[in-house]
């Protein structure tokens, strides 16, 4: 095994062999690749690897330290779980795309310079779009195109920022990039915007809710794990302690709640929920203290697992009944009891119930924000915590597997590989919640946080159980927001409706103006032709055939006039 090969490259290279493998050999290969890649990572100690000179640029293909290792570990774990979950899929393109995507995200998390980061950044975009297109529907094709344009656009902005930064400083090192300023520090500011697009900052977020629910049942599980968390890592590496991240993150935690409450497609609900969870991590990165960075890193770790678990359970529903629209589901728990059970574990983890993973990670960020005096932010995060319980803790399992009526849908339980993947992920969600010490042990900084204090457990239970009481109280009176088949417009309305309408409106004015201009020009040209024809045509005065004698007479007359003038001049 090449010792200095950057982590993740084995996954990318190994994935290229997938199309030539069949049956059990392919399954074994899919499961072995993440394990081998993980072993490779473990074999590499802290330090820099793959230092090369490319033209004038000094590149460091891999830099392994405590911060990048958190993402390295969880990305490998996610790659393995996703591979197991999608083992039944026959389409080799999906397997290839999934593992290349995972490998490039891992390589991105270990990138030691900004050019390497850019290459991985774009490779994640290009490889992951095939997970959306693999659904082979018109909607997924168009959503994939929009996703690709935005993701590659983010990469182009990143590259522009990197080159400007290199021009200003002569450095490509992926370290803390300084303060944001369009006038004094343009390069890092563009890099920040590029990270913000992938991290789904408010108003830059809607590619996530647009594309993820259109991917295949297994593809969305892959997608949920890597892109956005790579950007959280990039923010933690390049912009930790940047204050503007705190209000951005706070808004991210709050606004998706209001979309999730009215969304009918449960995978879209989870996409909004993902946005909300990213907000907690962004706040942690923005606060920037050791506890806050630990909070963001541990939350990213736990979040990848419980969010994957929730997407897996919805993917199992999609696989079995072909839809995840709440208005079309009901009482599926009868057919899919194990999937229901795992979904509830994911729901309790994301809601941060004690003994589940969210409880021991998310609270670190809240405590760090409170410690640093971010009062309003703390209240927003607390509000968002109740929101999480609503859309992910209750809405997903309730409308996915129970609901108010029996939909009549009867199906088989999820395939064995899906159940195994869900089972392992659920086990890890509970395991981290009960024994957080191993997770705390791999965090970037020593952990000075005790999650299981009587006060923390009681207050968290009060928040969640009383919110649960509100749900029961409202549901018994049928006062909760009904699940209706609909489309809820978000910022994507700008590029899917508004801009096309403006273009059509412009065409409505410009088209007739252009036609009138062309018609006027044609008329003017026709008049010119007619005028010329009247004088130079066969009947025109200049078009006639004159007698030679007439011509001679005219010439004699002209010469006579000339002679007269010459004579007068001579006098």
């Amino acid at each position, binding site marked *: 095994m090449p010792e200095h090969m950057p982590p993740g490259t084995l996954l990318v290279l190994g994935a290229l062999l997938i199309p030539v493998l069949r049956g059990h050999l392919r399954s074994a290969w899919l499961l072995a690749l993440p394990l081998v890649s993980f072993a490779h990572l473990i074999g590499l100690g802290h330090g820099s690897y793959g230092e090369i000179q490319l033209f004038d640029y000094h590149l460091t293909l891999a830099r392994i330290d405590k911060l990048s290792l958190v993402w390295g570990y969880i990305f490998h774990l996610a790659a393995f779980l996703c591979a197991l979950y999608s083992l039944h899929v026959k389409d080799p393109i999906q397997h290839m795309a999934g593992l290349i995507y995972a490998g490039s995200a891992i390589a991105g998390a270990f990138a030691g310079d900004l050019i390497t980061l850019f290459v991985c950044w774009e490779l994640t975009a290009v490889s992951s779009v095939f997970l959306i297109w693999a659904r082979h529907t018109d909607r997924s094709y168009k959503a994939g195109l929009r996703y690709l344009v935005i993701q590659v656009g983010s990469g182009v902005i990143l590259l522009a920022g990197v080159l400007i930064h290199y021009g200003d400083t002569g450095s490509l090192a992926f370290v803390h990039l300084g303060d944001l300023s369009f006038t004094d520090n343009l390069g890092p500011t563009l890099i920040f915007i590029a990270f913000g697009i992938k991290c789904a900052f408010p108003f830059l977020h809607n590619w996530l809710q647009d594309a993820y629910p259109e991917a295949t049942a297994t593809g969305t599980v892959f997608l949920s794990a890597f892109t956005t968390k790579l950007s959280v890592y990039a923010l933690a590496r390049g912009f930790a302690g940047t204050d503007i991240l705190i209000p951005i993150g706070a808004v991210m935690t709050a606004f998706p*709640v*209001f*979309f999730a*409450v*009215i969304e009918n497609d449960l995978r879209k609900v989870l996409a909004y929920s993902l946005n909300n969870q990213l907000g907690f991590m962004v706040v942690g990165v923005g606060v920037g203290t050791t506890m806050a960075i630990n909070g963001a890193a541990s939350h990213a770790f736990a979040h990848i697992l419980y969010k994957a678990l929730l997407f897996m359970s919805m993917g199992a529903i999609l696989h079995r009944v072909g839809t995840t629209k709440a208005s079309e589901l009901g*009482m599926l*728990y*009868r057919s899919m009891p194990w999937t229901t059970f795992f979904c509830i574990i994911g729901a309790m983890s994301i809601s941060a119930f004690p003994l589940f993973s969210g409880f021991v990670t998310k609270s670190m960020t809240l*405590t760090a924000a*409170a*410690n640093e005096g971010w*009062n309003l932010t*703390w209240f927003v995060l*607390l*509000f968002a915590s*109740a*929101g999480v*319980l*609503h859309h992910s803790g209750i809405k997903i399992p309730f409308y996915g597997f*129970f609901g108010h009526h029996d939909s009549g849908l009867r199906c088989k339980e999820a395939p064995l590989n899906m159940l195994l993947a869900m089972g392992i992920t659920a086990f890890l969600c509970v395991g981290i919640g009960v024994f957080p010490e191993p997770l705390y042990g791999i965090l970037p900084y020593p952990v000075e946080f005790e999650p299981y*204090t*009587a*006060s*923390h457990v*009681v*207050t*968290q*239970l*009060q*928040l*969640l*159980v*009383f*919110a*649960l*009481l*509100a*749900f*029961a109280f*409202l549901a*018994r009176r049928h*006062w*909760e*927001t009904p699940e*209706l*088949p*609909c*489309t*809820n*417009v*978000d910022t994507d309305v700008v590029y*899917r*409706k508004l801009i096309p309408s403006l273009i059509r409106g412009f065409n409505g004015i410009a088209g007739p103006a252009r036609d009138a201009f062309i018609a006027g020009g044609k008329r003017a040209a026709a008049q010119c032709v007619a005028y010329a024809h009247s004088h130079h045509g066969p009947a025109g005065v200049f078009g006639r055939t004159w007698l030679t004698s007439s011509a001679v007479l005219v010439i004699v007359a002209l010469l006579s006039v000339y002679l007269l003038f010459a004579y007068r001049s001579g006098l």
Partner: protein
Amino acid sequence: MTDEQQQKDTQTPWIERGSSLNLLYRLLIVICLGLLVPDVLDMLHIGYHKHIHYGAEGWFAFYSIFGFIAYSLIVGAGFIWRRVVMRDEDYYA
């Protein structure tokens, strides 16, 4: 309850029966009341101390009331928000 209704109720899975849901609801209320006990103990300074960052956290049942109201507000806001952003299912088609 007639025999037919009783038979139908016993054929329905336990979790879907009206009686079970009522029982669970009452159980939830009991748990909620139980969760208020630590706040009483905190006020009386008996065996439990609530660790707080802000003064409001020290109020009796702050987290309980916050959770209930926040959840209800989110649901209520959903009705209003839906009027603003909801369109036909094939809006983008």
